[in-house]
């Protein structure tokens, strides 16, 4: 066993991180900056990140990009298109942006034209409808009500692997969001002073942030396994790994984001503080391809 990233994987992660840091929204105000978003969209569509799967990239690579994009609150689609790419690959002559539907809603659908939906192992394609109001300020949901045209069947194995990939990608999003929120809170705790000291120097605050840091480390470990499992284990095992990772990372991310809100005090409860933007994204990523706690118990006894 050797659970390290390869140097190519590190490079990919660093490239995604750089893009997110340079063009992702650095503030709530930035979310409304359409010029920035257009530059981000151009950059992301130029990287080929959305076609990682048809380029032969592994689940680990998808997870690394998803994580860095969430950390930087990247607000152009990645998750939806990369999952669509896994389902149907690149279509000749097609210039549209594809996403996927989960429980009847096109996810991560900003600027997307077409949506794919699985029914059992049958694949259907349809148009992306009107935007649907959602909690996430960085990713848009849209109606996916058809009309649908059949695209034929995929194998059981492909379907399960795709689901494992979908779960894992949302886990990666959760880990990224947790890291971003934690960073924001730690930086704030170093500068905000009360009673003559920075708040981070008080144990009550330091201990909360220390707990968050440990949750993030644990999350990275389960995420890597799930991401590796997507391509390396049998589909049912890959799904099991992904479910476990989903439960752990979702709980961890919510705690980390809530802690980030708390550490910001009153400011943390305002619209202008980025903490809630992370929290919102975490909650929506938890709801995408959801896993219930009971499902972790399946196969235990």
């Amino acid at each position, binding site marked *: 066993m050797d659970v390290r990233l390869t140097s190519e994987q590190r490079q990919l992660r660093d490239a995604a991180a750089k893009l997110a840091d340079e063009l992702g929204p650095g503030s709530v105000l930035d979310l409304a900056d359409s010029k920035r978003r257009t530059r981000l969209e151009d950059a992301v569509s130029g990287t080929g990140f959305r076609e990682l799967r048809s380029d032969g990239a592994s689940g680990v690579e998808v997870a690394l990009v998803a994580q860095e994009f969430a950390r930087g609150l990247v607000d152009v689609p990645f998750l939806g298109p990369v999952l669509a790419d896994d389902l149907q690959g690149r279509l000749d002559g097609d210039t549209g942006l594809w996403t996927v539907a989960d429980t009847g809603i096109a996810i991560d659908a900003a600027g997307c034209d077409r949506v794919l939906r699985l029914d059992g192992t049958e694949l259907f394609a349809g148009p992306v409808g009107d935007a649907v109001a959602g909690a996430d300020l960085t990713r848009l949901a849209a109606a996916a009500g058809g009309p649908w045209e059949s695209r034929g069947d995929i194998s059981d194995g492909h379907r399960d692997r795709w689901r494992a990939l979908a779960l894992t990608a949302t886990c990666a999003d959760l880990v990224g969001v947790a890291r971003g929120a934690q960073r924001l809170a730690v930086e704030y705790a170093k500068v905000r002073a009360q009673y003559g000291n920075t708040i981070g120097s008080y144990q009550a605050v330091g*201990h909360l942030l220390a707990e968050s840091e440990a949750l993030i480390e644990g999350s990275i470990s*389960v995420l890597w396994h799930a991401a590796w499992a997507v391509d390396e284990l049998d589909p049912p095992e890959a799904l099991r790994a992904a479910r476990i990772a989903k*439960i752990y990372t979702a709980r961890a991310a919510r705690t980390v984001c809530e802690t980030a809100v708390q550490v910001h005090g009153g400011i943390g409860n305002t619209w202008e503080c980025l903490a809630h933007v992370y929290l919102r994204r975490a909650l929506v990523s938890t709801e995408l391809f959801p896993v219930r706690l009971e499902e972790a118990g399946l196969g*235990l*006894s």
Partner: protein
Amino acid sequence: MDFRDSPEEAAFRERLRDWLGGVAGKYPTSGDEYWARQGEWHAELYRAGFFGLSWPKEYGGQELPPVYDVILDEELAIAGSPPRPSLGYLIQGLGHHASPELCRRFLPGMIDGSQRWCQGFSEPGAGSDLASLTTTATPDGDDYVIHGHKIWTSYSDVADWCLVLARTDPEAPRHKGISAFVLSMKQPGVEQRPLEMMSGVTTEFGQVLFDGARVPADQMVGAPGEGWKLAMTVVGHEREPSTLGYAARYGKLVRQLAARTEGVIPDDLAWAAVQAEMLRLHVRRRLSEQLDGVTHGPQGSLDKLLMTWVDQSVGHAALAVAGTGDQEMFGSYLYSRAQSVMGGTSQIQKNIIAARILGLGA
């Protein structure tokens, strides 16, 4: 990235599994009987070639990559054998700070299990604030003479040797006046008093009173006043899940509990299962990092905190499933309470993470 065994690792696992099949049920896994026979178990593991895997060949180890320790821990848990004795932190402490002579003299017996060891750091007045310790070591001819009182000393009742911290320079600043010694527990001036754990176990740890115990000056580890450095190495390694060898047992406990539940798995148990699996994977990631030569400093505090959460959530699951009436499960719940105290409390781990990893200084 590969979470699977390499061919060599798989072969090792296979050999180990065969051997464990032959000793199944021979050793108790809990309570006083476990502690009473831990030394025998250690020696038997060593003789079969399954102990000291990652430690230097020179001292009886096999110099295998540390991931082999994970395989050992996992297979021990699967087979229902007792865990391996946790000595890694003492071995690292001596290995890093003792002279080559002392290492040659003491490490082989520590690794092969022929000599038992304990760690005499904590005192009634110096637990988390270890640097405030008041046990003294005063030079007298070629010896030092030790006076003081240690407490919570694991295995003190069976130990031949103690790695003890004592103050050699009362004038020096607190951290600088402490030295470390290898001291014989079998000599006049050393009194061992058992302590009973809240689980009722009486052989796990004790109090040790030193009243004029003598230790030859050449059994000082490192230079005078350098005991604090050794202490930091030891506690650092005590905080890695990989050296503790418990990680694999949580998964085993979870499966035992699941086997006892009918119908839906209770939330406490499901959550414990998820966390136990997280820790299994986390240990693999950490040990893989060591292949790059990364040595974990304050990061060990993150690992210790994670391990503590897992241990205690498994403890809560044991309560949820088996209640207080089942001796073994209740015992594992009670023992899980110690996890957030031993090797530095959870609060101390959080202080370290906040200050040294996150940079949230006072």
